[in-house]
């Protein structure tokens, strides 16, 4: 009895979590244009999607911005962590507090203030301003996920390496970096997803010319959504799913190797 209830509960949760996405996926294969009637199976929306320059551009923008902002934020954030780690306890907690404020700040506030700043300095809004904004809001996430690794490290292995004759740079790359790598990777992934996910900040800092997937969909909602966007959403969902599974398998393999 208890067991069946447990199973039922779980099934219900999974059902409600995935029902919307499932609906969307089904509709993306629908021949007709309406949302409430199944006309027949077709791949025409996929075809249209791949032939639509606007969508392809938005797709490209979304992932290049996510990749570069996550990469740059990860490098800058890791270097920042080295510096923060070397500070005294008091300074460290102040800096970490400052780091956490943007995390709690509403996206809309960050978006508008970034836009105002760009305009104040006479910078025209374009791909670069979006990239810069994404680096800005990704940075705290990177710091937040790398910093605990430094805490675990307690400088022990770093000092041991110096003691054995390593220069600070050699010690960092040989000893510290491998130890904090899990934090760096999760920081990168977090930054990447935050960037792909973002709508509000991109909306305020993009120029007239450039679109990411989210801003594109938003602009099309106003004129009526075509099922091409269902196809696009399905593709993105599948890509994300595959990447997540791959990461999971890889990290499991690594764990096994360590044992």
């Amino acid at each position, binding site marked *: 009895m208890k067991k069946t209830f447990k199973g039922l509960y779980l099934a219900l949760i999974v059902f409600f979590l995935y029902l919307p996405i499932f609906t969307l996926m089904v509709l993306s294969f629908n021949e007709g244009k309406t949302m409430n009637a199944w006309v027949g199976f077709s791949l025409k929306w996929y075809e249209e999607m791949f032939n639509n320059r606007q969508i392809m551009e938005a797709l490209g923008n979304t992932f290049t911005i996510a990749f570069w902002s996550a990469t740059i934020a990860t490098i800058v954030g890791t270097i920042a962590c080295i510096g923060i780690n070397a500070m005294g306890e008091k300074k460290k907690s102040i800096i970490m507090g400052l780091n956490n404020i943007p995390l709690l700040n509403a996206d809309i506030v960050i978006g508008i203030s970034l836009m105002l700043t760009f305009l104040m300095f006479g910078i025209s809004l374009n791909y670069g301003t979006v990239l810069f904004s994404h680096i800005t809001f990704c940075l705290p996430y990177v710091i937040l996920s790398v910093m605990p690794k430094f805490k675990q490290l307690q400088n*022990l292995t770093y*000092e*041991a390496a*110096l003691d054995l*004759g390593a220069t600070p740079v050699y010690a960092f790359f040989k000893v510290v970096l491998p130890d904090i790598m899990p934090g760096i990777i999760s920081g990168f992934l977090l930054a990447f997803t935050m960037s792909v996910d973002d709508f509000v900040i991109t909306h305020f800092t993009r120029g007239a010319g450039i679109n990411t997937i989210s801003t594109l969909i938003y602009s099309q909602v106003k004129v009526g959504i075509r099922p091409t966007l269902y196809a696009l959403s399905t593709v993105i969902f599948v890509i994300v799913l595959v990447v997540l599974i791959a990461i999971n398998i890889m990290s499991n393999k690594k764990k096994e190797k360590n044992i």
Partner: protein
Amino acid sequence: MGKYPAEFLKIKMPLIELIDISKSYDGETVLDEFNLKIKENEFITLLGPSGCGKTTTLRILGGFVTPDTGKVIYQGKDITNLAPNKRPLNTVFQKYALFPNMNIAENIAFGLKISGKSKEYIDDKIKYALKLVNLNGYEKRSVDSLSGGQQQRIAIARAIVNEPKVLLLDEPLGALDLKLRQEMQYELIRLKKELGITFLYVTHDQEEALTMSDKVVVMNQGYIQQMGTPEQIYNEPENAFVADFIGDSNIIDGVMMEDRVVKICNHIFPCIDEGFGRNKPVDVVIRPEDIIIGKPGEGTIDGVVTSNVFIGVHYEMCIQAGGFEWLAQNTTSYPVGTHVSMRVVPDNIQIMNKPQSEDEEAMALDE
């Protein structure tokens, strides 16, 4: 100068010298005008309670902490500001600090690779070092798969393959259980003999310090309390702190009546100390194992046994006598309530000046 051969001068010169080292953190003094000379091939131990500045001393030697004032001299050269990676000494850290992303062989090879040794040389050294620490065939193992004691020995192996002139060891056995600790103590002494290098050892365990060292430096609150051979430290503690810290002891208020006569608990005890003056209040140290127990009236002072515990080879008893609870050890058991007498051979009574204040105590010892 000229007429001494160079060899002779080298022996006379200490290998390492700490001169007037002071260090404070946030206004709190950790080391205060600390002076220490370490001779070549010596096994020297810093002994003191937790927080007395032992690790800080080692870190200053290793180059991880810069002293506020004072100098670190190595073979006559000032190395106070030399980077840690340029110093000719290696450390076995309190928490091992092995590299978890490398296997055992890579851990041990770390320093050798940096100094650009050939692959054959490195492989040979790894084999040799693993044999030395009794972990043959552990090359490919991961750090996580080793027990605390094994990790400890790898940390030692990793340090000694570099053939440092001095090995600094920071409570290397602190995390091990008693049996393993004793085994490792012998192991370390054997290693020291085999390698012929200078050991600077840090511990808060007085037994460990006394069994292993050539020279013990007792520290408290950043000051050296006493320096000497283990026998000197144990038999002739210079003050109440040392006496209390090293082994169990009775530290009793006494009055030096005249040379070689001390009054304890209103009873006159003959002793061998001189030069304290007449009617001078002093601290008297008597080791529990030096108290000779007899029938009432046979000794210097009579008392009653108030507790009795068997602690292995002998019984540890508390004896209430003359308003003081004496701690005594004997292979014969005297049950609680027994009336006994106690006496002490004059040789075994250690007289110490009473410190007026803590500062004065420390000052007096620094001289």
